[in-house]
């Protein structure tokens, strides 16, 4: 299996706008000749992170980055996750999309963006501002697992990782806690009977697997191009409900398991040097301890 040769930037660079009229063509399900109407309830996790375009600065106490007054937005992979869930709903495979966020009060803005993109309702698990930094994937996974039970969900779609901590762990942990199959780094999702056929982007290329429902899927970059939240949809989203609760209400203990010792800027890139020939190159590499 070969990875497709097209080169793309590592962030969504162009999007199609899908409005209330739904004029854009959606991809069709190849595997069956007739559409299957399912009634999946899909839970999607969305995280409020520092906007990808912002220049990050390390805090003076060297234990984190500056977040005060800095522009935040929805994690780009979570946008892709929401877009996928909404498309499933438009194809009548899903019947309800619930957007969930664990974060401070401002996380509600992120949930509202998800509602404006097409989610039906939201759940905000409020984490006090001081504890937000220390929230770990394991905590979020436990919260998601609990909510899955409460909401009787059939599918969980998460972004593959958050661009602030790059953990790439929540989807996997959630699946493990629920003892559900997981399909991570999804670049294509197709529905076949009671199963999902997922194309995964892995180091060696593309892997196509089948997972039985219920399952946890994590969205990768090329899964889709998220829609812009149109202004009329933003207004309509005002009427959609966001339930609020605390982690303790779900019986999840959010005390940290590890401690951040130091946060620093990556070292400033130094100038390189040119060498005359390969022998000098090998000598220099040996001197630097690289070989």
């Amino acid at each position, binding site marked *: 299996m070969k990875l497709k040769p097209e080169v793309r930037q590592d962030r969504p*660079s*162009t*999007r199609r*706008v*899908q*409005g*209330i*009229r739904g*004029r854009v063509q959606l991809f069709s399900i190849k595997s069956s000749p007739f559409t299957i109407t399912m009634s999946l309830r899909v839970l999607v996790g969305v995280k409020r992170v520092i906007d990808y375009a912002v220049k990050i600065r390390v805090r003076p106490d060297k234990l984190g980055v500056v977040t005060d*007054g800095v522009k935040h*937005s929805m994690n780009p992979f979570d946008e892709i996750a929401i877009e996928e869930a909404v498309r499933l709903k438009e194809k009548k495979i899903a019947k309800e999309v619930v957007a969930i966020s664990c974060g401070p009060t401002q996380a509600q*803005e992120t949930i*509202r*963006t998800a509602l*404006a993109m097409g989610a039906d309702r939201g759940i905000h698990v409020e984490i006090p501002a001081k504890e937000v930094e220390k929230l770990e994937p394991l905590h979020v996974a436990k919260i998601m697992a609990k909510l899955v039970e409460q909401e009787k969900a059939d599918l969980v779609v998460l972004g593959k990782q958050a661009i602030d901590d790059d953990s790439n762990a929540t989807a996997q942990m959630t699946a493990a806690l629920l003892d559900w199959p997981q399909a991570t780094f999804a670049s294509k999702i197709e529905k076949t009977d009671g199963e999902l056929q997922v194309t995964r982007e892995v180091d060696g290329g593309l892997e196509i697997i089948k997972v039985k429902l219920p399952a946890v899927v994590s969205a990768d970059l090329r899964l889709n191009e998220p829609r*812009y*939240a*149109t*202004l*009329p949809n*933003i*207004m309509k989203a*005002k009427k959609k409900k966001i339930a609020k609760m605390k982690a303790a209400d779900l019986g999840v203990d959010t005390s940290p398991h590890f401690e951040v010792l130091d946060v620093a800027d990556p070292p400033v890139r130094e100038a390189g040097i040119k060498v005359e020939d390969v022998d000098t190159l090998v000598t220099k590499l040996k001197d630097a301890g690289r070989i």
Partner: protein
Amino acid sequence: MLLPCRLLSSVAPQRLWVGLGSRVTGSVNSLTSFRAINTSPKDASTPAVQHADEENTSTEAAKLKKPKRAPFIKNLFLGRFDKSVLEFPEVLDQDQHELLHEMVVPIERYFLEQVDGPKIDRDAKIPEETLQGLKELGLFGQQIPQEYGGLGLGATEYARIAEITSLDGSIAVTLAAHQAIGLKGILICGTDAQKEKYLPQLACGDWTAAFCLTEPSSGSDAASIQTRATLSDDGKTWLINGSKIWISNGGFADLMTVFAKTTEILPSGEKKDKVTAFIVERSFGGVSSGPPEDKLGIRGSNTCEVFFDNTPVPAENVLGEVGGGFKVAMNILNSGRFSMGSSGAGMLKRLLSWSIDHAVNRKQFGNYLSEFAMIKEKFGRMSANIYAMESMAYLTAGILDGQEDPDCSVEAAIVKVFSSEGAWKWCSECLQVLGGLGYMKSYPFERYLRDARILLIFEGTNEILRLFIGLSGLQTAGGELREVVQKLRNPLMNPGFIIGKGIERFRQQKDNPKLDLDIAGHLHPTLQPSAQLLEYCVKRFQYSVEMVLAKHGQAVAAPKNQLDVARLADCAIDLYAMTAVLSRASRAYCIGLKNAAHEIQLASVFSAEAAERIKTRVRDLEIGPVQNHDDLYSRIADAVVENKGYVAEHPLTRTFW
């Protein structure tokens, strides 16, 4: 008494001054003067606010009665300062505020990701997909009420979104031509039937609108248009014939607000030509458009001629009243102008960031550019001017949203004049900071500069708007000052008034007016010096208004007296700007906004310089046209025009060898 006689000669002459337009009616010599404003003098110092009982439990259903205030600038011409504007308006409630800021995010993203400015400029066309995306975002129906499918946004929200759409001049103008003027007529004075018929498809962008007023021989002089509409014999259809030029969206608009002359037969049997506004669909037939004009800037915006050849328009498509078209046109233009302030400010803020980025990275003579005083001065002045632009725009929007039936025509004109000239000048300065790079097409500065040039021309040229500002104010003042003149002509019946006026006049002539407005009392104490300056300027302005009226009387609107009217207008512009920045800075400090101290600095320096400009202009009015050089320039211009060119002999000419 000698004093009253001197007063008499220096105030308005016996002949009554009647202002421009036909708004002022009534017999010339009547004692009960017709007023251009509808408030009584005692309203001035104590802002009378008429709030209804607040029984709103649900924010959506609340129809809170808004206060009604007199127009601010028009009253300033009479020395009346409505101190309620010193309280910077807080218009949006929390829900609206949150909603607005949610809406701003996708619009900004769309513009940054999907709009290719250089390509639009190069190809002189906005790609269809880009326009489609804008329609789906909902940007074509911002101010259309929600029940017709629009977003139902108010002036403040519209102004905020204009800050983002200014990222591309062609798109900004296309949107504005569609909704700020093209369909605004239907919003302002359309019948319910017209609204129901047209607004839904205009809101989602299925139909685009255009505003058709200008003709080859009628630009600034809008009342002289020659397109004609004749009523059919059965009285059911109008036939429109004529041609319009420079119509934005003219090449593809489905709906046009067209202004044409209709003949009215007066009771006396006399025929009078009046302007009437019509809603014309392209599908009515007889409508054709010329090729798109090749322009200096906003090249992606479609501008072309539109021809009407016996276009049949049903009688129910008359907008407003037959013969009332001029007023419709003026109302439409007045209501859209203020957003130029926020769109100009939005564009300049961006350009400022880019130029600063260049200045902190480029080194010459061992220093970064940002360390040189000449560059720093540009950034400093520009910041103060952007601050003034924003403050005026949102102050005006706040008045439009927050008051009942507000008359902001002069304020909107002021915002337009100040912002258009500021945008042009500061765009040029930003380009200058980059030097040669700024001149290259590979950088966006030259495109923004070219796009900004039109701002001084369309929606009423700045020259016309200066006359409008000056003459509207003078009309207001003239109406009221008649009473003053009456009293002055009867000194023995009004001794107290005569003495008071005498003392006031004496102080003004010594440039020491009594400051009794207590503007400082309504602002944060840090701004006290600026507040005193503002009061002084208000008083001097009032004095100069009386001076101009006394000097010219009825002839103030004559072509040769425009420079004095323009001076008054420039003073009014600076006064409004000073008021807006002080009001906003005071609020920022009082509510504890971040960087409020910086805002105080911006406001103080802007006010100080504005006050100097006002002082100079009042002085110029005092010393008269000979000493302020108006006369000389006029004679030079006469010579040059007669010669059809430059008059002075070439420097190399010799008369001897």
